[in-house]
């Protein structure tokens, strides 16, 4: 379309046949460019989703094979059996998302607005953990929070462990194998996904707008609330989605840092697929999780009103 319009607009001196040919060739280009991406999505997203969907409606077992029976009741069954894990996953993910936002916002603001020539070095440091694998970084937290380590010792001495135990985040006087450890792990692992979009938003923020707010009688706090925060909302929305969605489905942190009472839905799906080999139930749980996340995200994006943002 664009190529055709450009030719037509720019070429009143060209003769008829000469203009027609580039128009026809130009029409192919957008589709040709779209094709690899669409193909990729078809093969690696749509096809697996359809397979997973049909699998959830099958009955049978590994030895005798599965057959499609349209057993919709499995969804009710899945919800009944695993609603605590589902709710727990969403709760942990929401808590970790709020914590990453609280940690990431000041850091991203500092890097974007105040760091000057240190900006690039700090950004590299934010990304640096990605050079090690997710698994190893999570295992490292086992060492950090180990029962005999200095962190636990300090937490015990300052009474922090007592507080955690009182509010139900830990079960005993140690830190590891607790809700607290799982949420710490989630927060740590997804922090860069919060920092980077926030940084991108805050880096574009014109500091003169904040000056203008101050000039118009806004105290620093009001200037933040009325100008900086609303203008950084696209980053906040992107960052919270990038943190919330993967952490709701995460199964590494709760396995390595949690206990039997911190099992998240990702762990359940993992074990149903790979150990129990109850494929229909695992597939149904995957869909339930997917639907819950999509619903929550749709509500959230609606509330945040991203289309209203600049």
């Amino acid at each position, binding site marked *: 379309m664009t190529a055709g319009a450009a030719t037509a607009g720019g070429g009143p001196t060209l003769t008829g046949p000469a203009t027609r040919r580039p128009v026809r060739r130009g029409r192919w280009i957008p589709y040709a460019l779209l094709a690899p991406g669409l193909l990729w999505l078809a093969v690696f997203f749509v096809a697996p989703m359809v397979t997973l969907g049909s699998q959830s409606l099958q009955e049978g077992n590994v030895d005798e094979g599965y057959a499609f029976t349209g057993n919709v009741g499995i969804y009710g069954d899945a919800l009944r059996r695993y609603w605590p894990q589902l709710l727990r996953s969403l709760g942990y993910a929401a808590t970790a998302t709020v914590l990453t936002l609280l940690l990431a916002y000041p850091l991203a603001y500092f890097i974007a607005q105040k760091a000057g020539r240190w900006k690039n070095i700090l950004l590299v440091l934010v990304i640096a953990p990605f050079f090690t694998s997710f698994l190893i970084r999570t295992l490292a937290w086992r060492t950090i929070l180990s029962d005999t380590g200095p962190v636990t010792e300090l937490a015990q001495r300052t009474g922090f462990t007592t507080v955690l135990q009182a509010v139900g985040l830990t079960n005993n006087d140690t830190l590891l194998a607790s809700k607290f450890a799982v949420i710490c792990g989630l927060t740590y692992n997804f922090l860069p996904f919060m920092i980077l979009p926030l940084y991108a938003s805050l880096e574009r923020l*014109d500091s*003169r*707008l904040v*000056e*203008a*707010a*101050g*000039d*118009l*009688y*806004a*105290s*620093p706090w*009001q*200037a933040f609330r*009325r*100008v900086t925060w*609303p*203008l950084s909302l696209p980053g906040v929305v992107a960052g919270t989605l990038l943190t919330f969605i993967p952490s709701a489905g995460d199964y590494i942190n709760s396995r390595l840092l949690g206990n039997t009472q911190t099992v998240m839905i990702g762990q359940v799906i993992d074990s149903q697929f790979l150990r129990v080999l109850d494929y229909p139930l695992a597939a149904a749980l995957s869909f339930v999780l997917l639907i819950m996340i999509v619903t929550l995200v749709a509500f959230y994006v609606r509330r945040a009103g991203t289309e*209203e*943002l*600049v």
Partner: protein
Amino acid sequence: MAARTSGDLKLVGLSKSFESFTAVHPLDLVIPEGSFFALLGPSGCGKTTTLRMVAGLEQPTEGRILIGDTDITDTRAHQRNVNTVFQSYALFPHMNVMDNVAFGLRRRGDKDATRKANEALELVQLGEVARKKPSQLSGGMQQRVALARAVVNRPDVLLLDEPLGALDLKLRRQMQIELKRIRQELGLTFIHVTHDQEEAMTMADTIAVMNAGRLEQLGDPATLYEHPASTFVANFLGQSNLLRATVAGPGHHGEVLVKAHESLLRVEADHIPAQCTDIWLGVRPEKLRLGEHGGPNRLEGQVTDVSFSGVATQYLVRMPWGQEMTVVQQNDGSDRARQGDDVTVSWAAEHGFALDAAQAADAGVEGEG
């Protein structure tokens, strides 16, 4: 004009140094309440830094800022009853025009914010775009929104930081008239920072010419133009022909005879700085006449260039010693000279001004336009 309790804005020994250089040398200024004051100078002369110190966006290194008897030096920007129209407008992109204009009033808890904001929008003739976002407006409209957003608060001092710089010439003329009208209606103190000498002269009652962080000269536009105190001012405000001359002796009627390149010329005695014998004798191009009817001061030369611009014609006349003098003649029906003509350039004694020859003749030239 509403009576205001505030009073004059006083800058006392105000200076600003950054790590490696001094942006503003100690500056003393009194800006009378209700005046239209221009800070004029080339970029980097310290005018914007001065403005930002008054706004509270920059902390002065030394000195005090007072409005009336109230010292505001140590208050933050949001505590000062001073508003700025920024060069970039700095309109909040996520708010509509109405919310932009009402921003200051709402921060101060004004119950009547919406009505006042509407009035301010009417004042700048933008009532119909109140619900639009700034990005949907043209540059000129954004500029007026920025102006409305500042004046709606009725500040003690309104600061204008090159607010017309981004507009095209026609729009700029229109806004200059608009700004003058609004100031007359509201009676606020305006401080206008600009590098455009024409804009400063058109709009301001008083102009402070700044150069390299120092105040060069302070005065009303006519005085600055007719009696510049330095070659910088003579060149930065309009054009000047500067002739190297020495004082030769007293003449008649309070005049002094000066000798420039073997010619005896007359200047009014009180136009010559005290105890100066080596001087630059300056004459504005439009004060010179081609022919002998301009006055007793006469120089012979040859026309090397003629540029016709409608209302006037500008000539370059080469003097025997090689210097080219600029002559601007009104297009009033008199004969025009042609390139190559031998002409006499003449002017009256009262139209000359003299400056200490210790200064560079080309100071402030690049600031032109």
